């Protein structure tokens, strides 16, 4: 399968700080998504970003597909940003993977203190 590595595994911030989360992947992908898993286990879609840059409020993401990495930026962090951030990728079609299957990284556990 495809390897998805996220860093850092844990991140502790003071409210108001900025942070960058990284996702490296080992093969060509046609789908990359960032999720936030809240303390109740719900996976919230943040970005669909197989390439390029997107912004949504205090969050933005950049994927450089040719170099096989993606970055998630969180600015002016809030306590509600706490939780686990997952990067998930779908392998490019025809590379021997189940169509639509997402491969998840191990996540970054973010804790924001007031």
């Amino acid at each position, binding site marked *: 399968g495809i390897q998805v590595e996220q860093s850092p595994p844990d991140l502790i911030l003071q409210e108001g700080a900025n942070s960058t989360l990284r996702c490296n992947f080992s093969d060509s992908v046609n789908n990359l998504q960032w999720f936030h898993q809240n303390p109740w286990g719900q996976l919230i*879609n943040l970005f669909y970003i197989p390439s390029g840059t997107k912004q949504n409020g205090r969050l933005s993401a950049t994927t450089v597909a040719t170099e096989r990495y993606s970055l998630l930026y969180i600015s002016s962090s809030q306590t509600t940003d706490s939780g686990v951030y997952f990067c998930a990728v779908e392998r490019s079609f025809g590379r021997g993977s189940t*169509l*639509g*299957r*997402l491969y*998840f990284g191990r*996540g970054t556990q973010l804790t924001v203190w007031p």
Partner: protein
Amino acid sequence: SAVISQKPSRDICQRGTSLTIQCQVDSQVTMMFWYRQQPGQSLTLIATANQGSEATYESGFVIDKFPISRPNLTFSTLTVSNMSPEDSSIYLCSVEPFLAREETQYFGPGTRLLVL
């Protein structure tokens, strides 16, 4: 996007019993998937639920342990059979909507299962 509900939201079960989890979507979807998240771990795909045919299982998962049904384009069930404490996990269904502008997958709220 798609609105997905799962039932039950949580359950505590005795070993040796079975639990059926339901996943309902508010619109027709092309693909439905079932994932497992063991405590403190990432998500792993169990199977793709195929409408009108048998599910497609990933390596390490078998139909006898995780039978899946998908009678139509908006509904699927996953059964966890003959449970053991190792089956304690969050089980999530995900969908990829028809004619999505982007091939985004959406996840249900999950079912938290504890097996004693």
